[in-house]
């Protein structure tokens, strides 16, 4: 029957005229048309209703802060901080979305690579900032290897990536749950004290790379005020983790640059229409594989950056806790299942982390009910659901 349907399509009105006006308006948003719609409507249409609601919600929270005795500057510091922890993880979604592999629900796999890097770095006796460098270096081959295998698998199951990624992520995670117990780790800071074997679920990074990036060129307004002997008022509570932000900016810039190269262009084309790419001589499988490796590596680096901000390594089932928030963040930023940009990453992370930090404090003070957890679940899952059920327009 599918052939028959294509035939109808060929006879459909849009093919028979050169006039733009016969194309149903829902299918496009051109310059002229935007002027026909009211500015508000146009904004809603291009911004997306859920995103608008989330932004509005966050704005309400911001406006509420002074009335409920919550310190705005502390909140902003928190948001910046949490942004610096999470942004690279969200960035890791971009390559796979670009190559058409969909939302990377297999993020735990990438996180495992990062965890291997951090635990081995400590095991090998690195300390201080060097331990972070070592963790990155060690995580890289794992990311390439595991990412390569993961890419190979995803190439064989095109079309079913998201569901399989979810469960491959779970499987790898639970496999490593066993490994954390069984691998011969011995560094006393990491293993259980009594049995002297098996890694602890939470490992403190004090003395290793806690705040190693955040502390680099850190701008602490309170300290500055103290040094200069002036009062900056509320601003004194503002602390900017410059180093972490710089690393994100660097990685984001590299990603942006990559998408402007020949290979990056090919990756976008593969995600947009794999058949077109194949007909243009692109090796689709290899491009997808590259994107998966890139995503995995970025995820591994992302978790290391997260750890240095958070101050702890979390093992066992912890990798799973980051998947949904990360996927939701990029979608809130305006990405869809097959399109994503750097600005989506930045906007999404700010919005999502904004809600994560603001809801507990503001809501708690306002209505004396801590509904933040529930709101976070509904917002993030609702956003993913919205992206999944949105009709993929135009393409095939």
């Amino acid at each position, binding site marked *: 029957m599918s052939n028959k349907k294509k035939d109808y399509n060929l006879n459909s009105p849009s093919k028979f005229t050169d006039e733009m006006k016969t194309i149903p308006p829902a299918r496009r948003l051109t310059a002229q048309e935007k002027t026909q719609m009211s500015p508000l409507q146009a904004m809603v249409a291009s911004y997306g209703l859920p995103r608008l609601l989330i932004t509005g919600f966050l704005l309400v929270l911001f406006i509420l802060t002074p009335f409920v005795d919550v310190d705005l500057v502390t909140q902003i510091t928190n948001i910046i901080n949490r942004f610096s922890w999470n942004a690279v993880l969200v960035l890791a979604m971009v390559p796979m979305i670009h190559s058409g592999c969909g939302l990377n629900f297999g993020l735990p796999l990438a996180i495992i690579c990062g965890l291997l890097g951090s635990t081995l770095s400590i095991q090998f006796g690195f300390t201080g900032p060097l331990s972070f460098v070592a963790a990155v270096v060690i995580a890289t081959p794992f990311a390439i290897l595991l990412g390569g295998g993961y890419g190979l698998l995803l190439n064989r199951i095109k079309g079913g990536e*998201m*569901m399989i990624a979810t469960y491959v992520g779970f499987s790898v995670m639970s496999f490593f749950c066993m490994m954390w117990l069984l691998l011969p780790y011995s560094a006393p800071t990491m293993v259980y004290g009594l049995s002297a074997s098996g890694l602890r679920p939470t490992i403190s990074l004090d003395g290793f790379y806690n705040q190693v990036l955040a502390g680099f060129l850190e701008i602490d307004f309170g300290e500055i005020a103290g040094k200069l002997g002036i009062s900056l008022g509320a601003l004194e509570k503002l602390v900017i983790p410059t180093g972490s932000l710089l690393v994100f900016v660097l990685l984001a810039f590299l990603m942006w640059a990559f998408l402007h190269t020949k290979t990056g262009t090919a990756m976008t084309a593969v995600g947009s229409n794999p058949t077109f790419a194949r007909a243009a001589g692109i090796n689709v499988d290899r491009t997808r594989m590259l994107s998966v490796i890139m995503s995995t590596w970025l995820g591994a680096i992302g978790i290391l950056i997260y750890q240095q901000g958070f101050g702890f390594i979390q093992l066992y089932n912890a990798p799973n806790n980051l998947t949904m928030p990360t996927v939701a963040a990029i979608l809130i930023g305006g990405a869809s299942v097959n399109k994503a940009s750097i600005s989506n990453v930045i906007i999404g992370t700010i919005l999502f982390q904004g809600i994560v930090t603001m809801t507990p404090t503001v809501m708690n003070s306002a209505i004396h009910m801590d509904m933040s957890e529930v709101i976070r679940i509904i917002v993030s*899952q609702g956003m993913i*659901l919205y992206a999944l059920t949105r009709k993929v327009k135009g393409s095939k």
Partner: protein
Amino acid sequence: MKKKNIPAGKKALELVRGNAVPIMFVIICAIFIPMAGFSPSYLLNEIITRMGRNLFLVLCLLFPIMAGMGLNFAMTLGAMGAEIAVILVADWQIWGIPGVVLSMILSIPFSALLGFICGTLQNMAKGREMITSYIINFFINGWYQLIVLYIMGSIIPIIHASIMLPRGYGIRNTVSLLNMRQCLDDLLAVRIGGVKIPVFTFILVGLMCLFIIWFRRTKLGQDMRAVGQDMDVARDAGINVDRTRIISVVMSTVCAGFGMVIYLQNIGNLPTYTGHSQIGMFCIAALLVGGASVEKASIGNAFLGVILFHLMFIVAPGAGAFITGDSMVGEYFRVFLSYGVIALALIMYEAKKRMAKSKAGRELAEAQKEKEAAE
């Protein structure tokens, strides 16, 4: 036509390949049972209990598979519906069999509504039903928590403080169902050599099986199978595809609601916020262990799957402790196996779809080559 020519050895190989997952689990269980060192009567007792507890839930997965919607990760919705019903019934202090029956009846509107939402959303995401149902499950879980944790007791009146959180609203983490505990299981229960057989629960499961068999022979069942195999053809034949798919999900969630009530009366308490979270995953894993695939599952798969999966589940920690000296390893191992078997089934399903496509091409190419050679 070709089947007759296949030699017996090849046939056996096909059989093994077709049932690789159950065979693998039989082997795992065979190795683990002696290591775990449980007595046979203990194992038998546990298995029988768990069959009574889980079979009904696993069976409700069959409807969406019949309608081609894959593994219904959103059967959890039915479980949530049932939990809300059970909380209300527990608050009204209706215990024993009447309590169970009332819970089942009361769960129907909740489960049906949630199933309807789920089916509608899945219809909007054709081709990615499974991931959608998986996410719906989390999404509705958010709403469930909102209702149970904040609205119950503050807006929905809850009479008895015993099930409420000390702060005055919201339900406690565990609601005791002591007065409902195993009241179905104990009805007509028979003890054979120390093994308790919950006859009445098994009768319910049996009725469910009969219903499924009967349902396959109804017009709706036939439509569901048609929709499951080819939506376009079914639509051209005048079958209302979307509606049929929604009905299959609603049936699944409503049955899952009943199954959850059976499950809870067996456990004897309600873990309010965690009770449903793993149900879907374990039921799906069990069904797959029994040899089902994403597009094909039978009652036999459900029975075999529940037995094998739970046998593995019981013996894995002991066996893990035996091998590594750490029972946690065994516990992680069984989780790994549950996730792994789902991942494997999904991979095999997608790979098969692709293989079927390329196979058709290969056959044609070969036929042409032969022709060419002849020319």
